[in-house]
């Protein structure tokens, strides 16, 4: 049966910004395979939820793919060894979030010897609960950065009326191209993963959202999806949605609104409007976990920025210290700031030994001249922040409340709806750290509420 094109163009959301993207630094660089790291630092908390509990001790030898941290409770995820070697330390180590976190350090034996992976022949007769178990055992979490354990998102409550799975390939953060390259080079894995997730959730519609600055990815994804059995037989309704390039197009709330016309109610989840969103990397990891029985031990990372001589994309074993990557891509003395993630939402690092974790989509090295620290001025009510806020907040008002420590008052401006995309801070001519102040307001309002239960 000849399929008509799966590609469809979509309108944009309200607000947002067009920062310089700098994706051309790396968007034509194929994913590199790097030499194995000599040492990995594996935090037991690489996901949202309860940290895993270490199930190895110092001195143990481990194989690649062997579980070293067991999931603790329903919202948790196991952690696997990403190289083979010896556990040399278990302790508190710097984590990309800026805190120190219980981590397992493995010194490589250079052999990369794998554990025996379970044999999987097809999933035809396997029930969904078993599939969910396989995904959970492989330690799959949201690779887009949210790192929510994927199994939880695959087990909606009975009451949820799901009809659409959105695969998020928007990758709206400037500089990052990891998802882009994955879609170009390994669209098959993403497509398989998408079909699997759709099957487990029992939804009949899959929409892959891709920004229109990645035309090659669109073509590759369409090709891969067309080959899927359920798509050929018409059981699965698939669309490759081309969405306008605008930050934060990849935000869950924005992407869902653009693709389905539905808006998640304040404080709600995508599930409340019948949608589940998974990142393209997560879909690929699900496919590996189910079809190959392979645990999550590596991910694609964009190592980029003007502070590097040869930026690129690489498949990186989790736990690899940032220093090794920065050196591999030509990092020199020209380092002003090291950011894990993209420039809009990433976290600045103070330590070069911070490891790549499951949620690390990129490492951005900014040269000193790109790092400016300006004086914060009063709000001149230019309303630029309001125009760009994709949620329709008054970021300036929240920031003014926070500045005057009027946290109770700040609540009327809905700080909890803020997705912390950073558009407001980006455009503010007074250099006000609006997102930071909104986060501050959120924390304070929360603690106020805890102190005074109503």
């Amino acid at each position, binding site marked *: 049966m000849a399929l008509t094109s799966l590609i*469809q163009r*979509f309108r944009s*959301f*309200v607000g947002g*910004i067009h*920062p*310089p993207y700098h994706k051309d630094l790396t968007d034509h660089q194929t994913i590199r395979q790097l030499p194995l790291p*000599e*040492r990995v630092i594996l935090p037991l908390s690489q996901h949202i939820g309860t940290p895993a509990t270490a199930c190895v001790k*110092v001195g143990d030898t481990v194989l690649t793919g062997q579980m070293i941290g067991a999931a603790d409770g329903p919202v948790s995820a196991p952690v696997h060894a990403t190289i083979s070697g010896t556990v*040399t*330390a278990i302790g508190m180590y*710097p984590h990309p979030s800026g805190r*120190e976190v219980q981590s397992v*350090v493995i010194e490589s034996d250079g052999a990369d010897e794998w554990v025996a992976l379970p044999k999987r022949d097809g999933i035809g007769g396997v029930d969904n609960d078993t599939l969910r178990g396989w995904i959970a055992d492989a330690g799959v979490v949201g690779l887009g950065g949210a790192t929510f354990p994927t199994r939880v998102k695959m087990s909606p409550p009975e009451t949820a009326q799901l009809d659409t799975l959105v695969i998020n390939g928007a990758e709206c953060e400037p500089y990052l191209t990891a998802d882009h390259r994955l879609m170009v080079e390994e669209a098959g894995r993403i497509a398989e993963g998408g079909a699997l997730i759709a099957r487990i959730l029992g939804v009949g519609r899959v929409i892959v959202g891709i920004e229109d600055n990645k035309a090659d990815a669109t073509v590759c994804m369409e090709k891969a999806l067309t080959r899927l059995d359920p798509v050929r037989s018409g059981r699965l309704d698939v669309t490759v949605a081309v969405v306008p390039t605008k930050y934060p197009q990849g935000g869950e*709330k924005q992407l869902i*609104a*653009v*693709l*389905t*016309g*539905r*808006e998640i109610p304040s404080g*709600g989840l995508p599930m409340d409007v019948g949608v589940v969103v998974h990142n393209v990397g997560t879909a690929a990891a699900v496919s590996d976990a189910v079809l190959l029985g392979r645990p999550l031990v590596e991910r694609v990372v964009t190592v980029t920025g003007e502070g590097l001589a040869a930026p690129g994309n690489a498949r990186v074993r989790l736990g690899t210290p940032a220093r090794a990557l920065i050196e591999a891509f030509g990092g020199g003395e020209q*380092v002003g*700031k090291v950011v894990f*993630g993209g*420039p809009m*939402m*990433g976290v*600045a690092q*103070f*330590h070069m*030994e911070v490891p790549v974790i499951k949620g690390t989509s990129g490492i951005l090295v900014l040269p000193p001249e790109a*790092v*400016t*620290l*300006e004086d914060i*001025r*009063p*709000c*001149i*009510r230019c309303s630029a922040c*309001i125009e760009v806020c*994709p*949620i*329709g907040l*008054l970021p*300036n008002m929240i920031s003014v409340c926070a500045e005057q420590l009027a946290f109770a008052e700040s609540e009327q401006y809905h700080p909890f*709806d803020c997705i*912390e995309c950073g558009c407001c*801070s*980006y*455009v503010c*001519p*007074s*250099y006000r*750290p609006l*997102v930071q102040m909104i*986060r501050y307001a959120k924390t304070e309002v929360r603690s106020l509420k805890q102190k005074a239960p109503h």
Partner: protein
Amino acid sequence: MDEPIETPPTATPPQGEAKPPPKKPTKKPPKSDPAPAPDYVLSSSPHIRKAISIRRIMGEVLLALLPATAFGLYLFGPHALWVLSLCVAGSVATEVVCQRWAGTRVTISDGSAALTGLLLGMTLPPQAPWWICLIGAVVAIGLGKHVFGGLGYNPYNPALLGRVVLLISFPAQMTAYYSPGWWGVDAVTSATPLGLLQEARIRSMGLGEATQLSMSDAFFGFMPGSIGETSTLALLAGGLFLLWRRHITWDIPVAMLGTVAAGSALFWWIDPSRYMPPQFHLMTGGLMLAAFFMATDMVTSPLTTRGKLIFGFGCGLLTVIIRLWGGYAEAVSFAILLMNSAVPIIDKYTPPRLYGTGKPPAQGPKS
């Protein structure tokens, strides 16, 4: 002590010397060395910023005022330059004094005081005496801005506040206009078109000499008036530049000019023998200057498009009312200051549409 973590020095040390020897497996997690001061900048996201600053905005607004300023100087000669210079210098000096006195950082380099001074000067008669300029500057910056806490906190447009205080305190000097004359040598006292209209109305003489104004003179700006307000053409050019640079939005000028045009057109249509046509009202007085450069002042106008439309409408309506029936020939300053005081209320009732509430905008596939 275990030393699994080296600090990142700028010069890369030999790799692999960080060998944490498991001396004895203790229960206590080995604490890594406290990291010495980082070599990198730590700050909250986002890590990139748009190339924009207060100074840049003020600079471009000053640039946008250039055509009107230049035309005013051409029309009214060196005394106009004297007036403008005094206003700018007075404003900047007042800001320095206020900020020194308050012990805060002196921020004259952001250009906002200079802009206030220039705007004030542009609303003064070309022959204004030096003390009028200085009093205006002190009032505008001192009372209009720093009493409230400085830039961003002032509820009223400082330049307009300065002008209105002068207008009320020194009506004679503030309404002494001269017909345009180079070098000011052949300057003859003459009323502005709006002044003529006002006088005729008070004396029940219909429209009086105001009808003699040629519309093309008004458009290019060859008429008596304040230094920077006469040329509709020059002001439009500046306004369009600001719109293009996105330092102002269309809503306030369109709502304000639209309301003035519609209101004056209505009465002109009812009784053309008593009311002037809309084009007269659009091109005389300080309307163009105000609609593009004063009503649009960020600090003293509402935050959202809906609010700005209401604000612009209010400014326009008050202008029409005061011009047609009020006791002052020049209505725009009063109209904007009155609407400035309504901004908090307008803001309160015109929040932006919050995602997830109300009717979502049209989305979904393009047809």
